[in-house]
């Protein structure tokens, strides 16, 4: 399960952990968390058995489980996207990378004798290559990240279609399917996998200097270069991580339906990932990033989606409801929007 406490990774670490103190120290953390809880609460009001979880054949079922399970791909993309955005970049290609890596895995497993582990490694390798491609365009050739990753976004789906020959490439392989459908301790495997990747990346960037150097490059890349930081390598690294995260997401999505759908796998998911990062408080202008909060952002998006599905609302309203809820969250995060309410609240308190 995703540990929300890790969202506080950037706050100064006092001896003796206190959530209240940390929240006071960094109010930024409060809003995504509050928004998430509010949406869950809203879902519960709409659908009273929202929090019901039942155990069927050793597998936990329920809307809450669905949110974490269905949200896993977006969570993974948001993790990679956070690091990319922290360097003042953006990776629009992740949706297409999902399609490529899914296609690679599905085609290799059904048409060759390779062992599933090798197939998974090759598929991750494809994601790494995609990330490296983006990274080289951005870091070495100094192409605007928006344009550089747009190239793969457009071409990527074509590549995936070439791999699957325009069909949905289906397969039957229990090991590969396990990534999307497996159950460990009652929990769907994608939940555990995304949590594992989250912790891995968190440790990788926060227990080393990499996180600091990413923030430095994102905040002022020229000054970072002057300070002796290899800004190029840092940029290359974040796109590679993003590509790898997308590859894992691609494996989950592909394994989930036992088939690689080059046209639809991960379609528009890059935008959800960017939105998750923004909800989590990382600025598109780079600098400080908050991995844990991006994960919360991704879960917020998924919980809105799941909430709409169980609400019984006609599907015509899906996008409008989604947009309104997200708008409300972004307003909640805006200081300028909150200020009048805060003042009103103060006045009321003074009067009472």
């Amino acid at each position: 399960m995703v540990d929300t406490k890790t969202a506080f990774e950037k706050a100064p670490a006092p001896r003796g952990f206190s959530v209240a103190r940390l929240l006071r120290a960094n109010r930024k953390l409060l809003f995504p968390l509050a928004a998430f809880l509010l949406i869950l609460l809203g879902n519960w009001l709409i659908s009273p058995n929202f929090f019901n979880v039942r155990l069927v054949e050793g597998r936990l079922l329920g809307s809450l489980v669905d949110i974490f399970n269905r949200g896993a791909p977006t969570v993974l993309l948001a993790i990679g996207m956070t690091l990319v955005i922290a360097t003042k970049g953006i990776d629009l290609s992740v949706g297409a990378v999902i399609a490529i890596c899914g296609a690679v895995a599905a085609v290799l497993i059904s048409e060759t004798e390779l062992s599933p582990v090798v197939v998974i490694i090759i598929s991750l390798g494809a994601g790494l290559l995609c990330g490296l491609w983006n990274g080289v365009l951005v870091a070495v050739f100094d192409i605007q990240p928006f344009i550089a990753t747009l190239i793969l976004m457009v071409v990527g789906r074509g590549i995936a279609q070439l791999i699957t020959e325009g069909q949905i490439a289906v397969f039957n392989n229990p090991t590969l399917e396990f990534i999307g459908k497996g159950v460990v301790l009652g929990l769907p495997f994608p939940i555990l996998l995304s949590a594992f990747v989250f912790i891995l990346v968190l440790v990788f960037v926060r227990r080393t200097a990499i996180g600091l150097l990413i923030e430095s490059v994102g905040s002022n890349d020229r000054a970072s270069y002057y300070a002796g930081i290899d800004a190029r390598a840092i940029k290359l690294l974040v796109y590679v991580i993003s590509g790898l995260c997308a590859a894992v997401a691609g494996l989950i999505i592909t394994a989930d339906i036992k088939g690689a759908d080059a046209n639809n796998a991960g379609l528009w998911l890059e935008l959800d990932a960017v939105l998750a990062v923004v909800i989590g408080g990382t600025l598109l202008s780079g600098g400080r990033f908050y991995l844990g909060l991006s994960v919360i952002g991704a879960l917020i998006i998924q919980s809105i989606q799941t909430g709409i599905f169980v609400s019984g609302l006609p599907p015509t309203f899906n996008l409008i409801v989604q947009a309104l809820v997200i708008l409300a969250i972004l307003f909640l995060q805006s200081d300028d929007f909150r200020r009048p309410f805060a003042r009103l609240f103060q006045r009321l308190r003074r009067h009472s």
Partner: protein
Amino acid sequence: MVDQVPLLQTQKLTKTFGSVHALAQVDFNLYAGEVHAVLGENGAGKSTLVKLITGVYHKDDGTILLDGQSIHPQNPHDAQSLGISAVYQEINLVPTLSVAENIYLGHQPTRFGFINMRRVNAQAKALLQTYNLDIDVTRTLSTYSVAIQQIVAIARGIDMSAKVLILDEPTASLDAAEVQMLFKVMRTLTAQGIAIILITHFLDQVYQIADRITVLRNGEKVGEQLVKDLPKRQLISLMLGREFAEIAAAGESVAPPISADAFVQARGLARKGMLQPFDLRIAKGEIVGLAGLLGSGRTEAAQLLFGIVHSDAGEVQVKGQRITLKSPRDAVRHGFALCPEDRKVEGIIPELTVRENIILALQAKQGWFDFLSTARQEAIAQEMITALRIVTPDSSKPVGELSGGNQQKVILARWLAAQPEFLILDEPTRGIDVGAHAEIINIIKRLCSEGLALLVISSELSEVVDYSNRVVVLRDRQKLTELTGDDINETTVMRAIAEK
């Protein structure tokens, strides 16, 4: 102009940020038709005062009176409609628009609801002629010099409201002739009864243009005098809260123990269009000054030595060994460090904390995986904050929120923390107030005595002459001469620069 009612007056104006008193009970009086200089060290409260008057901040206590009426500007726009305009160091104009468009942006003369471009241009031209500026107003603003841009900004401000004009460091990027042009404009304005608040670090200019001085220190007003009644020495003592003799004494030079072997040596270092073949040798414990006018190749020499740009001829040796310099990383690895000229663009990482900024170069040197623990970082940061007297509430304040002088110190601290053997300082005292200026020069001398090899680039000749063991003079991207020993004084350096 004395003994009249002030045009703009603040009474017991107070503003606090958290526990810091940015401004405490300040009474400030501005009379019509005067140039009133507000002076003080960084963090003294000058910009807070200006921002309160222009509505960027809102006062906690006290009153602001304009023509005897209490005013409450909510934002700069509000202040402008009351008659108070400010022109900042970073000119808030749109460089890609024409001069005329910039002047009338947002309040263009219109005809039938459409902007009447011909009238805009004609009005703009006429307006600028009142400032003795006869230029093509249809040209893009960015094609003009900073001085002209500054005057355009002033013209825009004055055109919109014409009682109080605030100029924040207007001369920082102007040359001497341009400064005089600006002063002429200022005199034209005061003659019309406009009151000007001038904020600057250039004390000489204060004595040239200002009528009255208010000195702030630590958020409090410590003096208000007519310029003619306040000698420079006394002014500096007021600003620093110390006697001038003290400051001078602290700067006594240390005997230069020059070791014979060069630590770093450049031979024929050159790059086409940037620098002619350039020789330099610096030993440990030696300070070499690099003098020359702006554009003489001073900064370019530093960039070549630090691997920011690649040389196409010549070589750099460290302790007699030739090294390759492909990036600042290479330079750092060989014990080099560079405090760049452009603090904002090349120096600070504004969003990161003071602590993170200080340990950044050391961390970059150590690599990605040898991460300094928070405790180590804090220890280094505290040591530097104390040693360099960096004024900050704590080490976790984003460095972008510090004043310019303190930012400069943080960058210096960053490089000292990386324990370099060869330090290049490009304009270490630019845009810094008097107190920090003296401190930084003392630090430079101390570092030298601790065995660092130093290369200092500065436009302040008196400064270069003061601490350098040797002075290299550049002109037109070429090394002219190298002065040593008794030859080093302002006159010789000037003569070297000017000589044909």
